[in-house]
């Protein structure tokens, strides 16, 4: 990664050295899962976002939580190539955080009008985010054994290095393999999955907010 050269200040004696990265570096750092880049983004962009969030009153969410959620979404979108670099990463991150604030306040606004000329997440992406957010809430209410069997069936929890694989083919792990891992009978694994998955769908599809989002 190319770093823009900058003269060291006296403060580098105390471990503080003002790095400055280009847009290309930032995006490349995110895609390549560079931890230092995430830290740099926090250090450089949090004060601005904090100021923007501060302009909203009556927010129940903490500024750090908003930044954390916004950065998470921005990182995922960059890795999934949903961010096309039409605006700076900072502007993109700011617009995501602003959307979170607006949603938190339940203020219906035309997001495209908020940031004319800059790249913001579009309506369909926003809709998917809402669906996923709702689904997350339902998932989080499930008991751990149910989450575990569904995770295993969907190929999660096999190893920790899958964490940033954006696109995984929709295929399921065989019940025989799950049964081996859990040291139970194959039929037992199948029944458990079916029961938990049905329960999940039932709760999700009965959910009023979900219905509102899908209709």
């Amino acid at each position: 990664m190319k770093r823009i050269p900058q003269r060291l200040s006296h403060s580098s004696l105390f471990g503080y050295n003002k790095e400055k990265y280009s847009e290309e570096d930032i995006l490349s750092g995110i895609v390549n899962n560079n931890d230092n880049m995430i830290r740099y983004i926090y250090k450089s962009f949090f004060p601005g976002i904090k100021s923007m969030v501060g302009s909203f009153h009556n927010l129940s969410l903490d500024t750090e939580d908003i930044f954390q959620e916004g950065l998470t979404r921005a990182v995922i979108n960059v890795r999934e190539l949903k961010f096309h670099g039409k605006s700076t990463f900072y502007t993109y991150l700011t617009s995501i955080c602003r959307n979170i604030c607006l949603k938190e306040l339940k203020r219906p606004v035309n997001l495209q009008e908020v940031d004319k000329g800059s790249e913001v997440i579009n309506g369909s992406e926003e809709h998917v985010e809402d669906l996923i957010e709702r689904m997350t809430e339902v998932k989080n209410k499930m008991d751990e054994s149910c989450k575990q069997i569904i995770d295993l069936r969907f190929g999660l929890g096999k190893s920790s290095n899958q964490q940033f694989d954006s696109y995984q083919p929709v295929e399921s792990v065989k019940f025989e393999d799950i049964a081996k891992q859990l040291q139970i009978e194959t039929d037992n694994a199948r029944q458990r999955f079916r029961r938990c998955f049905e329960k999940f769908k039932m709760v999700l599809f009965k959910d009023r907010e979900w219905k509102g989002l899908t209709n």
Partner: protein
Amino acid sequence: MAKYTTYDDLIEKYLEGSLSEAERKDFEEQLKSDKLLSEKLSERQMIQKAWIKIDQHDKVKRHVAQLIRIEKNTIQSRKTRWLAAASLILLISISSVIFIRYNPKGDERNFQAGNKGSTGKKSELIIRGQKNEIRKFGSSDSIHKESSRAHYLPKDGKTFISADTITFSWPKNSLKERLMIFDENWMKVTDIPLSKDVTEYKLFPSKLKAGTYNWILTPNGAKSQLIIKE
């Protein structure tokens, strides 16, 4: 419902790849004509994709949170280091001011030479050198002391000028109680009580006029003569 369960089983088998080649072909053919089967497959795939996305989101968020925590700690420790450095500089500055202001050998020349009374409190007799008085006797303000020696008493017959500060210095273990100065006729000029912790006494120019004096340090009676000239 029974049909749905069958569909569910069929879909699960299809997704895990355990259908035979013929069964898979039949399934895919059926998808084209059976809307319900097609919808149920889409729904099942959508949920799996979303489930994976939720998991991915959680993992990224945890990772981001961890890195933010690390960066916050780094910023905090950096602030602490700056604060420590600033405090140290402030402390050194204050110490320097105090040292310059109150150092007995400094310009102010404050020192205490007194005995401890019966109450154990320090004597109120404080001899304070006055800058003005030193200036009154001349611009040269030399202190007669051999720097190489830890203690010093003026040699017998030593001659000083009136602008000199005369130092009497003795070892710490050699306890002195009084410094008495007499004129050449052994008339007492001054009698200075010395506290136990004092190992040095400076006789400033204002104390003695030109003349010949005898001095005695009690109790062991160290004595000698000194001459002061204009």
